[in-house]
């Protein structure tokens, strides 16, 4: 009964002019961002952060749910039309989407990618409700040691799943270190302020995200001279029939389940999930030989998977307050700048926020059908804007947006600083998501670390005497140890070859 009342509360927020307009704006922006190769949902979210400044928290978060969903789908458009994924999470869609386009079945491929994305998104929104609420209830009993251990696990998993565990750990520790700049939460002294009045409160989240996610990516596009092909669009075949949909249903179900599970794991993300979904669909297919040559299931499975990741990734964010990916880290940032802290207490203090997210995830996916069908020609015109103009315009939005946060040139300087840092990390293959997660979780990690030690009167064994935190810390250590072992084994094999 309480659940239904809360869903009604969430619906009352979503089904208003402001709520629906925010979702539509988010889906359109996310689809455009996802459809432009080189730009992904996280970058789109980072660019649009200043626009949320004047919005109320629910409208801002609804827009971000829309961007997240639209971004996952948008990536499939260039995957089908030019054989280049718009986002890493749409890489597997190229395998069969592009051959279908070459066979003149563009409508079939684009239609199936849309339907599968919507299917995966809707399944994951239902699963989000099923898993997030009980997990949040369990997390209500967590104390500082458990929270410290959980945040640590999130960070070590992200670091372990990067290409090199040392680089991952450096990136995560760097984020945590950057978060310590500013006023100390316990002693009230300014740490690493170097006499600057701008650093008393530390670096602002918005310029930090705009620099590390958005500016670094634009600089990387220029540095690597990433060029896009012109996307041509004409419907050369019918959209998928009901029979096609039913034929692909098992692949979509499998993809949705994989996407949900992988999405909930910190660090794994949609780019890994889409390949898992594709491979499983191929393994269980009656005609695996058709995969790679234009199999419709080969489009349905990865697209259902990458959109199902959205619901999965929001489970730890909403129930524990711990994001597991770049996109959810930006969403956490949106909530923080509006004075809200996701986690189990949010369900008690501001139930309209988590429940409106549940409803909006469902609604965003339904809206996505109309946005994609009605605006696809317009979206492709935007995607076809030359990259030199696009890069310059994005940079202008980033700088003006950063300035608008505090009307301060220092924020533009912060964007530049973290843009260059992000670029260097990208060039040398350091995971910037780990730095972003470390930065946004820094306060939570440090305060809970110090609170635990305060409660135990300085006894460091507090983390190992508490059974839940002990298990989580052991898991963190194992994840790092396993990653070190795998890296060593991989290097040895590389040297032997």
């Amino acid at each position, binding site marked *: 009964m309480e659940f239904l009342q809360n869903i009604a509360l969430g619906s009352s927020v979503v089904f208003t002019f402001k709520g629906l307009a925010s979702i539509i704006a988010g889906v359109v922006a996310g689809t455009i961002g996802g459809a432009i190769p080189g730009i992904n949902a996280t970058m789109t979210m980072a660019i649009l952060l200043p626009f949320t400044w004047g919005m109320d928290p629910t409208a801002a978060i609804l827009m971000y749910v829309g961007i997240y969903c639209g971004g996952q789908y948008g990536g499939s458009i260039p995957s089908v039309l030019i054989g280049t994924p718009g986002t890493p999470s749409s890489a597997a869609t190229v395998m069969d989407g592009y051959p279908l386009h070459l066979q003149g079945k563009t409508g079939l491929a684009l239609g199936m990618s849309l339907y599968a994305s919507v299917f995966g998104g809707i399944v994951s929104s239902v699963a989000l409700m099923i898993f997030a609420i009980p997990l949040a209830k369990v997390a209500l009993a967590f104390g500082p040691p458990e929270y410290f251990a959980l945040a640590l696990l999130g960070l070590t998993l992200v670091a372990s799943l990067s290409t090199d565990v040392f*680089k991952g750990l450096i990136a995560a520790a760097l984020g*945590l270190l950057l978060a*310590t700049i500013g006023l100390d939460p316990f002693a009230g*002294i300014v740490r690493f302020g170097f006499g600057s009045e701008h650093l008393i409160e530390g670096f602002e989240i918005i310029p930090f995200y705009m620099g590390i996610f958005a500016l670094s990516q634009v600089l990387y596009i*220029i540095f690597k001279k990433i060029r896009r092909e012109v996307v041509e669009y004409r419907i050369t075949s019918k959209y998928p029939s009901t029979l096609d949909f039913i034929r692909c249903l098992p692949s979509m179900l499998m993809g949705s389940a994989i996407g949900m599970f992988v999405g909930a794991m910190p660090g794994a993300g949609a780019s890994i999930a889409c390949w898992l979904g594709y491979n499983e669909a191929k393994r269980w297919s009656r005609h695996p030989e058709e995969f790679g040559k234009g199999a419709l299931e080969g489009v349905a499975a990865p697209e259902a998977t990458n959109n199902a990741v959205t619901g999965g990734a929001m489970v730890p964010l909403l129930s524990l307050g711990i994001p597991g990916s770049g996109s959810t880290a930006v969403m956490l940032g949106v909530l923080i700048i509006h004075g809200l802290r996701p986690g189990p207490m949010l369900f008690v203090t501001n139930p309209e926020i988590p429940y409106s997210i549940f409803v909006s995830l469902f609604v965003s996916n339904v809206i996505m059908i109309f946005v994609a069908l009605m605006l696809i020609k317009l979206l492709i015109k935007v995607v076809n804007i030359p990259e*030199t103009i696009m890069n310059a315009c994005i*940079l202008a939005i980033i700088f003006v947006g950063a300035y608008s946060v505090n009307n301060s040139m220092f924020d533009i300087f912060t964007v530049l600083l973290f843009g260059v840092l992000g670029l260097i990390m990208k060039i040398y293959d350091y995971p910037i998501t780990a730095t972003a997660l470390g930065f946004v979780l820094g306060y939570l990690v440090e305060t809970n670390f110090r609170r635990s030690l305060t409660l135990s009167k300085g006894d460091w064994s507090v983390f190992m005497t508490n059974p839940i935190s002990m298990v989580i810390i052991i898991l963190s250590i194992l994840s790092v140890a396993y990653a070190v072992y795998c890296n060593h084994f991989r*290097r040895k094999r590389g040297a032997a070859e």
Partner: protein
Amino acid sequence: MTITNKSKAVLNILWILAAAAFYWTSIPYSEARTFDPIGPHVFPQIMSGVIILCSLGNLLVIYRHSKTGTDTPETFHPGDALRMLLVLVVSGLYIWLMPAAGYLVATIFLIFLLIAVQGEVGLRVNILVSCGFALVLYLLFSKVLHILLPHGFLEFI
């Protein structure tokens, strides 16, 4: 141009130096009065330690790779790197120009120079885009989002 093991090693040395600087700076914080038993200096010192240890690990890996000759340098075009550096210089100029010249003039210059630096777009399109987009952004931030943008010498706007 290539990204070699030597440049990777330099980056790891820079990480170590930066982390050591953080560690060194945090030492005086141990004297701050606080009610928690560890104080404000321990957490940054642990993080600095993690960065130093992992960077040393990376250096060891790079050293062993250079001995076995498994260095696979990544290549990039110097022209693109120069273009990227010019974009950074133009962005730095923007920070310097905006307070004096105001938002509108500085942003028109920013977009114009950014497009010009990257090339491939004609002068007429460049002027049109830089003036048009700067104006759209001005209207969006100033009139819709009510952000006070610096006017510089165009204070009468």
